[in-house]
């Protein structure tokens, strides 16, 4: 773990893996919920880093450092509590054949692998409510498309590198698309607004 300076009111924790990110994020989130880091404004996990931003002048950056020294990084982070969110998917994505070919299996096997996994939202980014989910079976860890599509439809389910995810709304995108869901994943007027917030467990089910 390296703790890097990030302006006068933030620090960046650099880690070796998504699992370590999850351990640090959940420990700091727990400390925040327990009232030990009251001045934290943003707590943002990413692929290998966690941002802690506090109100200007707060001593919580020092308090966060103390919390960090107590995070065990050598064992997997605690599994998120609660049942996983079930996302129904029509597996008819434009890249399903490509993904099957790359994995050297049939499209049906791609569906069975994708629905067989239990995923965790590691972090969000790219657009509001776009969660990067880890837990993808190894044959489905495939690179992005060489050329991004100018418009990926709302609800598209894709894979890229070690992640799977759902486009909460139409946007450009380069993930390999294997299906689509009709579930609303981001609604700014809902509570909570993002169905796929960091730490959430997720399973995909083939929609009939």
């Amino acid at each position, binding site marked *: 773990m390296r703790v*890097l300076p*990030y302006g*006068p009111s933030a620090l960046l924790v650099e880690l070796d893996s998504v699992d370590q990110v999850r351990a640090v994020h959940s420990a700091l989130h727990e400390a925040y919920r327990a009232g030990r880091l009251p001045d934290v404004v943003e707590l*943002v996990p990413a692929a290998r880093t966690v941002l802690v931003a506090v109100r200007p002048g707060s001593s919580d950056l020092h308090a966060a450092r103390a919390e960090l020294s107590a995070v065990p990084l050598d064992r997997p982070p605690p599994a998120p509590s609660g049942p996983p969110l079930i996302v129904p998917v029509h597996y008819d994505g434009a890249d399903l054949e490509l993904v099957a070919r790359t994995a050297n299996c049939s499209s049906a096997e791609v569906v069975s692998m994708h629905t067989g996994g239990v995923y965790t939202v590691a972090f969000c*980014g*790219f657009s509001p409510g776009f969660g990067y989910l880890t837990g993808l079976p190894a044959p489905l860890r495939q690179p992005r498309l060489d050329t991004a599509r100018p418009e990926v439809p709302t609800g598209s389910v894709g894979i890229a590198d070690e992640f799977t995810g759902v486009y909460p709304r139409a946007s450009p995108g380069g993930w390999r698309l294997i299906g689509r869901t009709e579930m609303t994943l981001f609604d700014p007027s809902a509570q909570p607004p993002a169905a796929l917030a960091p730490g959430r467990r997720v399973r995909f089910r083939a929609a009939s």
Partner: protein
Amino acid sequence: MSRPNRRMITVLQPGPLALVVDLGRPGHAHLGVPPAGALDVPALRLANRLVGNPEAAAGLELLMGQAELRAESSCEVAVTGPPVPLRVTAASGSRPTRTRAVSSHRAVHLEPGEVVAVAGPSSGLRNYVAVSGGVDVPPVMGSRSADLLSGLGPSPLRAGQRLPLGPVQGAPPEAGVVPASEVAARASVAVMLGPRHDWFSDPTGVLRTGRWEVSPASNRIGLRLAGPALTRRAEYRDRELPSEPMLTGSIQVPPDGQPMIFLADHPTTGGYPVLGVVLPDDLPVLAQARPGTTVHLRPVGSAGT
């Protein structure tokens, strides 16, 4: 509660870009939601104080002025940011048509039907308009701010659009005129290095001696700078950075070495290394920096982290 006689203003002309802004929606970056909000925060706070609003009330951010607003009910209006002339015209149909010139940076009382026209500022970029009661569009995730990156909040304002106003708080408007100064063609901002300054060759030296120019491709997402390239040290030349969180003020350096400073509508994560962060007190200077402005990025000591 029904409000049949809701106080309103009408946007007759939005100018090049008029947005509803308040202090933004920080605290949602972990969901991929940008902070958004006024770029020149002290200017919005001042406008609100001048009309007796809480400082965090929603107002309008005008890019290069040239906007016209009509009061549909009596209200106080104040315009801040760079100094800019205003003209108030009486309700159409009143005889004879009366026009009065007023200054920015003071409260101006408008009667129903009166129109205030904001000219183009002769320096700077962004003016802020506060109206007594505040602009009362529905909040989205705790803020009424437009967000040009994510599309959350109200869209850019259109000619003819009516905006509801909130109830007047009862605080008397601040009396008098606040002095305002023209925006300089040179901007010097303090930069705290990190988290990725060690990726670059002599970052302190390059910042100390280098001068950059604000590119016309700048917007509310970020200020693009053109000038000396910040080059990576040999061991980082071909290194890829997994996307990491961004802050308002983060100076991101893409492979071409030309820095980009993220402003309020910035993406929550980014894949290029951040050389340093502009100190928050200096962000309003960047909010007003026109294309062509010379920028000095002044390295200052770290916070001892």
